């Protein structure tokens, strides 16, 4: 690890992981706990709506997390890896 550029990138990557981990923990406790009960009720009452809502949530989360990680990567200069 003599190359200072590589060392800086690894450092930035670890910072990204730390920021991301903090965001994910907050996400666990706020969003997923709030969603738990309503989704369970919907699962029991209307499976068709639940199936389509499940797909919508998965897609929305993927787009959101991809934007968040891209933003953090850009902020820390990790996008230069590309």
């Amino acid at each position, binding site marked *: 690890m003599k190359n200072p550029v590589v060392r800086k990138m690894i450092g930035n990557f670890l910072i990204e992981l730390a920021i991301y981990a903090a965001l994910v923990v907050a*996400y666990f406790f706020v969003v997923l706990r709030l969603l738990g009960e309503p989704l*369970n009720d919907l699962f029991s009452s209307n499976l068709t709506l639940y199936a389509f809502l499940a*797909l919508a949530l*998965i*897609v929305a*989360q993927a787009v959101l*997390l991809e934007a968040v990680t891209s933003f953090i990567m850009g902020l820390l200069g990790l996008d230069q*890896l*590309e």
Partner: protein
Amino acid sequence: MYFPITDVTVNPIFLAGVGFLVGLLGGFFGVGGGFLAGPMMFLIGVPMNFVVGTDLAHMTGKSIVAARRHRVLGHVDIRLGLLMVLGTVPGIEIGARIIEGLESTGNIDMVIGIAYVVILLAIGTFTAWESLRALQLVRTERMDAHEAIAFEGVTRQVRRFRLPPIISLPASGIEAISLWVILGVSFLTGLLAGVLGVGGGFIRMPLMIYLLGVPTHVAVGTDLFEVVISAGFGTVTHGLKGNVDVLMALVMGTGAAIGAQIGAVSTRFFAGPRIRLFFSVLPFTGATLVILRLLGVLGGH
């Protein structure tokens, strides 16, 4: 954390960790990763019906992240991906119906399991052999390291099939190929996936490279694009049967998002033959897991 839909308590960090690992593999190799996530979820007590549906839901999210990243890197041939979906979906459907028909005549789980192991071992052995040979060619004949393939004769034979309509796929560097070849390859991978009950990335990715002549990096990105559509379709169909725990899939997705980004970006640092050589380990891992399942160590379907 308690997941009321599946009625199980699972450590969310473990689930996010599984998502990260599968995301990393998916981003790098362009596979769904169900062969790995499924047994892990089963081991921590998730009921088998939820394992399949939830894994598909998580696979959809992870593949969106990885495919978007590969698109930025110029590794996704959307035209090829959409055309392949046209062959894959009916293939999966017919494969699943064949299995339904065979199951009504008796227990065929063992036969399918053995067929799956044989196919995985054949793919793993062939990919390892070909990529090692390609790497050797790069060293001895100064071939372009980025896309050296030691099996180009078959690709040329496939391209000689000129039944119209003939199309071009500039994003994959293919000037002219019969549409029927693409539909045939995608139908075959779909059929195998339907019969074997898997996503099919294992089979599709090598066939795109060796039969269609798609560059390895583009095959990885395009396969992920196709996984988004097929896994998304599977999420809804399994969701309608009550087999999806979306909360669990969302938790897995948090880890998968970062893993998929790292996996996708990492492909930039490896030439095609090297990626294929690493890829060859996956079918062997998958075959081992199936053997363990057949022996009852990992439970059944």
